[in-house]
Each structure stands twice: as C-alpha cells, then as structure tokens.
C-alpha cells in the first residue's frame, strides 16, 4: 500500500529527488549549534496556537456580554478545556520567548549581515505581528487585565497630534474600549493576523533557503564568498545533512520547550493567568496593581519614567525602527561580535537594560 502511494508520488513529483535535495543531501554548517533551532521551535508553537485557537473557537463567544463567561466555562465546564486554553496561553508566551531568543542568537552570530538583511527585516515584521497577535488575543477573555491593557495600548497613538485620536478611535471603534473593540480585535486575531504571519513565514523560509543557512562566526575561517558581489547560494558541502542530524537537534529543542510548557501548565497554572484575569472587565474600575504581560514590562516602565508621553512613545518607535533597520546601520564586514568590542558592549548593555527595566516594571 505504502509502496504504491510512494510510487504514485514518485512519478508525479519526484519524491526521492525531493527528499534528497531538501533533506538528506541538504547540508547545514558543521559548527551549527542549538540556537539555530529556535526559529523552527517558534514555527511549531505558531502551529500549536492555530490548532488550540481553532478548538477554543468551538466554545468562545466573541461578545462583550458573553466572552468572559464563555472563557470561564472553557476553563471549568468543558472537558479538558483548561488544557486547551492553557496550551494556547502558555504556548503564546513560549512562542514569544522563542522569537526573542532567536533574535538574540541571530544578532550575536551576525546572521543579519549581508546578504541576509532582508531575512532580518522580514523577521522583525514577524516579531511585530506576534506582538499584535498577543495584544489582540489578550482582550478576547474580556477580563479586567485584558480590558485595561487594551485601554493603554489603544490610547498610545493619542500621543501624536492631529492623527492620534483618529487612529485610537479606529482601533477601538468607539471612544472607550467596548464590545466594538472586542469584535475588531477578534476579527484581527483569527483572520487577518494569521494570514499575514503565514505569508511572512513563507517569505522568511524562502529567503533562508534561497540564500543558504548562515554559519556561526566562531571558530571558522572567514566565509570564502566575502565580499558579496553577486547572488549565489551559500552551501556547506562539508557540513552535516539537514536530515537526520539537524532535525534531531530541532526535536531536542522542541522537547525542551514542550517540557517547559507542560511544567508551567501543571505546576504554575496561575503564572500567566493571575487573579485579575478571572475578574470580568469593568469599564468603571481600573485594577489597583495592573501590570502588562512580562514582555511589555520594559516599554511599560520606560513610559512610566519618561515625563513626556509624546517623547516616551516616540522613543519606543525610534528604537523599533533601529531594530528593523539594524542590518543597514551596521555595515562593517566583521561578523564575529567577539572581535568587535563596541558592538559587544552595545549588545550586552541592551540586554542588561531590557532585563533591568523588566524587573523594575514588575516590582515598581
């Protein structure tokens, strides 16, 4: 039976050749490390979000009168509803962690450098789409946390004169966060954003394959192709096969993240669903100690300490643009960050400040 299917496919799509060129004979650099697997893990977690999100839609009712109750019922009445929702909630955070670590690894290994600038830029867009995913999904349970986090996010554009109010109202659909906002965010979360992210993932993977996987800059000879004058595929003829060697590495990393997800679901179930997430949204009461999700704590703290709203939000936009356009700003040939002390100091300082602002935002 299997042989017949294989033969059927062989005749039509050249299965054996496809497996050879794309998996067994496709080579990755010899010194590739575990950090190179984070993109794959993020992709799997995105698929997990799609699957768990699809099942949540069976019971979730996107209306301000019913959304909170339907989520509570998923958690308490629907058999294993808690598991599906927790996988969606914890999975989204771990997807964010993967993307974040992936960026740190790519930056540290100089993977953004010529000819991979476009791969980086597409990656940054994916990162921002992920943030909008988190933000739009955050409102859907219609809890106090979701309501007030969304109020803050949708008020941010008002820092800008003339168009700020209009943009804020377009996002909300009403002067305050309301059922109309919920509908807009729901539509965004389940239709437009997945479509955009799938297109960006396709483009990102195309670029990775088209250009070729970069190799870590540590302990290797300078790439022979430098300087890059015209397009060619970066191959690694002396490298390890993509399958099974690299795929096994990816599976190891995936298992670590899955273990972490189930550990959080089993032993720390309230870590990402604190008390305020179990209180229905009250448009007339801002909770006393409202904090955003951990990944927004650094920008939250920055907004808190900068005395001017316009300045605070403008600074965050400038930092985002720096992040997107970084490959075009750092044009030095040297890829090894350890040989570039100023860049290394900038990198360490950036990560350090992010950690400090996150902890400060949490405890302040």
């Amino acid at each position, binding site marked *: 039976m299997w042989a017949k299917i294989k033969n059927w496919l062989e005749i039509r799509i050249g299965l054996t050749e496809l497996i050879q060129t794309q998996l067994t004979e496709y080579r990755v650099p010899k010194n590739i490390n575990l950090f190179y697997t984070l993109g794959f893990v993020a992709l799997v977690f995105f698929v997990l979000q799609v699957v768990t999100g699809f099942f949540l839609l069976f019971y979730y009712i996107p209306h301000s009168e019913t959304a909170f109750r339907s989520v509570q019922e998923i958690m308490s009445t629907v058999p294993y509803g808690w598991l599906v929702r927790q996988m969606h909630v914890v999975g989204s955070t771990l997807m964010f962690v993967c993307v974040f670590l992936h960026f740190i690894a790519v930056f540290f290994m100089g993977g953004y450098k010529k000819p991979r600038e476009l791969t980086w830029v597409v990656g940054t867009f994916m990162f921002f789409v992920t943030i909008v995913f988190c933000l739009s999904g955050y409102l859907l349970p219609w809890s106090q946390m979701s309501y*007030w986090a969304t*109020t*803050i996010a*949708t*008020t*941010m554009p*008002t*820092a800008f004169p003339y168009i700020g109010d209009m943009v804020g*109202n*377009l996002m*909300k*659909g*009403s*002067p*305050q966060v309301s059922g*109309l906002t919920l509908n807009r965010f729901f539509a965004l979360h389940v239709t437009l954003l997945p479509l955009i992210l799938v297109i960006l993932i396709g483009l990102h993977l195309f670029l990775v394959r088209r250009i070729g996987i970069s190799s870590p800059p540590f302990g290797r000879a300078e790439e022979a192709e430098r300087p890059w004058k015209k397009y060619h595929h970066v191959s690694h003829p002396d490298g390890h096969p993509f399958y099974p060697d690299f795929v096994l590495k990816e599976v190891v990393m995936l298992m670590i993240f899955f273990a972490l997800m189930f550990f959080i679901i089993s032993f720390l179930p309230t870590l990402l669903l604190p008390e305020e997430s179990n209180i229905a949204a009250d*448009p*007339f*009461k*801002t*909770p*006393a*100690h*409202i904090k955003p999700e951990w990944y927004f704590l650094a920008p*939250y703290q920055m*907004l*808190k*300490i*900068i*005395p*001017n*709203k*316009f300045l*605070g939000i403008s600074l965050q936009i400038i930092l985002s643009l720096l992040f997107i356009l970084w490959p075009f700003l750092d044009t030095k040939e040297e890829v090894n960050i350890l040989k570039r002390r100023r860049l290394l100091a900038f990198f360490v300082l950036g990560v350090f400040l992010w950690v400090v602002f996150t902890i400060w935002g949490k405890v*302040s």
Partner: protein
Amino acid sequence: MLTLLGLTTVGSIVYPLGRFLAPPGEKDKSKQISLKRSEIPAGEAKDIPFAGMPAMVINLPGRGFVAFSRVCSHLGCLVDYDKVRNRIFCPCHAAVFDLEGNVVTGPPPRPLQKLPLRVEGESIVIG
C-alpha cells in the same frame, strides 16, 4: 486620464472603508447629570457616568464640589480619589493629580478634564 481613473478607483475603495471603520456615533450621551448633595458626604467622592465616559464628583471639605473626568490624560486608565492622601491617583503608571486635577507627578501630559458643575439648592448639576 489613467491617473484620474486610478485615483477614482482608490478613492472609491478607501472612502467607504474609512467610513466603515470609523466609530459609529454615540447614542447615549446625556449632556447633564443631576445628583443629590446628600449622596456625597464631605471628603468623599462618587463615580458617575457622564456623556458616555467615567467621571467623578468629589466633595472637598470647606471647598465644595468638583467634578472631573476619570480618564487619565496619559493612557486612558481610570483615576481614583485617594481621600487618605488627599490626591487623585492613576494605578497604571503611578500618576498623581492634585484636587484641582493638575499633574503633581508622573507622565500625564495635561491635567484631568474638569467638568462644569453647579449647585442648585440640594442638587448638583454636572454638565
């Protein structure tokens, strides 16, 4: 000619889309609200909805009644009257306003919106 056709096509898509996305008009926006003086003892505040937004009336001892929008001018969280410390506080980014609505500390760019209020006999009329 081609440009004109192109602009017409784009306009005929963008305009209806813009109108579709723009917030529909508010139906319930009563411009005046009336309370009884006895509802707010001295040193206390009462939260009220006013013109579709959260507001509050504070009875300041010796100074009478004042009304503010509760929407923080920073990022839209709702402020609360802190009678112990005699201030108005926003829990989101720790902004502090005085009892005139002026910013004391924190990132809000402007004071709280003060609402017109008058006392008519035993009634307080806001708006």
